[in-house]
């Protein structure tokens, strides 16, 4: 079960350990955990909470397709992706991507690739709650550029 979309929290340590449990061919596990940040920049009211909406019929297969593409580019021993939905508070975990491979280069690259593609291809939307009301998070151009650099089979 490499991909999960769930409301509940996850144990990143346990998920990372599970990727190499009972096997001796894993030399590297790279992981990324995304958290809800209380954005206190000058022009932004502090975020009190965040709600993650998704497209239930599409989310799972979009994430499966991203993982399959990563496995096609790198020789990976295991992949685990967990993305939470629903209402989250600052400091809460949102997403986990963990990748196991024989060597660190492939694990690092595949982990970053999956995050970059997830941010532009997986149907999730964030709505922030602030003292001034709710606001939908705008997509960042830098996310599109980050995903774009993997085009043409880049590694």
């Amino acid at each position, binding site marked *: 079960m490499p991909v999960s979309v769930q409301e509940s929290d996850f144990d990143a340590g346990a998920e990372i350990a599970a990727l190499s449990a009972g096997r001796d061919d894993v030399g590297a596990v790279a992981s990324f955990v995304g958290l809800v940040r209380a954005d206190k920049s000058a022009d932004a009211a502090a975020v009190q909470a965040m709600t993650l909406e998704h497209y239930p019929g599409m989310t799972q297969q979009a994430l499966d397709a991203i993982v399959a593409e990563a496995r096609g580019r790198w020789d990976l021993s295991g992949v685990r992706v967990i993305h939470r939905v629903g209402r989250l508070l600052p400091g809460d975990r949102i*997403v986990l991507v963990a990748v196991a491979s024989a060597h660190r280069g492939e694990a690092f690259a595949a982990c970053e690739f999956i995050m970059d593609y997830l941010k532009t291809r997986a149907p999730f939307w964030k709505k922030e709650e602030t003292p001034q009301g709710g606001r939908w998070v705008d997509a960042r151009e830098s996310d599109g550029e980050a995903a774009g650099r993997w085009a043409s089979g880049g590694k």
Partner: protein
Amino acid sequence: MIKVLFFAGLREALGTGSESLALPAEIATVGALRDHLAARGEPWSALAGTKNLRAAVNQQMAAADAAVKPGDEVAFFPPVTGG
């Protein structure tokens, strides 16, 4: 009939998350369907006004020239912001 879904800020602007409609015979693409719905007037013009509106056909990301046929599930939404 086709099923049309809306998400996030677009869903809120339209006041609905989904509808079923009979696909007019002259509408064969995602872009034509978007224009057809946007032409209903307020609040549907949000479909034309959403910056970088994205779409999916049968749960796969689709461009404006992607084909739409009866029985399809078509979704419109703003650029995704997960992760």
